[in-house]
């Protein structure tokens, strides 16, 4: 999974794509309604590709509503991602301090771990000895 910043960037790009998709939809699927008396709908020959592929008004309307809702959703998603950016409350100095602290703790933990491993090996050797001793009887 990508990190949150990349997710956010991708979400922004998707928003741009949605803008274009909306335009495409409006341009291609509108109902050829003339605005004024001077507007004319050009008569196309049947073999010419249609510039506008009209949808029935209710379907067109529903499509617009859906696209608008998607836009809002995407924007909400972006805002959500922004609010969840990692470490918004940490300043650089705090981060550096935290990193140093963690480094120290890691060293301590590693030492403890090595100690435990050593102990484990000792016990293992002892156990081995005992088991072998039992077998020999």
């Amino acid at each position, binding site marked *: 999974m990508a*990190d*949150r*910043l990349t997710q*956010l*960037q991708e979400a*922004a790009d998707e*928003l*741009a794509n949605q*803008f274009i998709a*909306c*335009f495409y939809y*409006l341009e291609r699927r509108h109902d050829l309604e003339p605005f004024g008396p001077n507007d004319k709908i050009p008569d196309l020959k049947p073999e010419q590709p249609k510039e506008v592929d009209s949808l029935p008004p209710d379907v067109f309307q529903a499509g617009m509503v859906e696209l608008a809702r998607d*836009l*809002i959703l995407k*924007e909400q998603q*972006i*805002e959500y991602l*922004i*609010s969840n*950016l*990692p*470490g*918004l*409350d*940490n*300043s*650089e*100095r705090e*981060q*550096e301090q*935290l*990193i140093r602290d*963690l*480094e120290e*703790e*890691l060293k301590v*933990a*590693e030492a*403890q*771990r090595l100690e*435990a*491993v050593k*102990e*484990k090996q000792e*016990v*293992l050797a*002892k*156990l081995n*000895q*005992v088991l*072998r*001793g*039992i077998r*020999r*009887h």
Partner: protein
Amino acid sequence: MDSQDDSARVTALFPDPPQFWKAFTPANLSRFETLKQEYADQHGLGRNTVVRVPNLPEDLLYLQSPPEPEDQKWRLFSEPLSLKDELQDLEAAGIQRLAPPTLLDANKDGKHGDRAFELKKIAKSLLLNFLELVGLMGHNPSLGEQKVQDIKTLFLNFHHILNEYRPHQAREQLIELMQDQLDAKRAETAAIRAVVDKAKRALEGLGSMEIPGGGEEGEAMKVDEAGEGDGKKDGEGMEKVEVEKETWIRADEQFS
């Protein structure tokens, strides 16, 4: 026909390597190594830390890489590059900056909450501008282009602020990784300790059981240390077998 093909083939030959490949003779290489070693010794440096040896004889010049460009800039495939890999300023890229430039300040104590706020503002502006654009296209399409430019500026600013945030996020991720590592280490240590304790208890259990046998364990260990147990204990009678049986039963109980 054949001759034509041949000439075409000749013109398509792979270009010659640069002339300086001839400088890489074994003799030159060893001379260069000696010079490098001398230089390292003179300056008290490790052999591998010497990057460039100054004042090389002319015929050895090709044996080391050229110095860094003085102005820290060079071109690669007609793309300008610089030594310092910096995020290009919005202004340098010819884009209007929307967020206040104070955000940029390398203020170490600065919180990034403002940045999130700016991002949210831009996100909202994007929606609003798109709405305006659709409206404009309905009423006066000639103004649409300007609006598209606005939206472009908004998007670029959005990305720019995000990219400025990257170093911060990288540090944040490092912290997360270290924390994970720490947790994993502690968990491992705890698991090992738990097993060790269990094994110790089992050993103690075995030890206390073997007391009736009278130093069985010690004896067994001596045999162990002596090398291959060659069955010299075989003759020690049946009671050993009994003890052994009991021990095994107890051991099974312990480990089940």
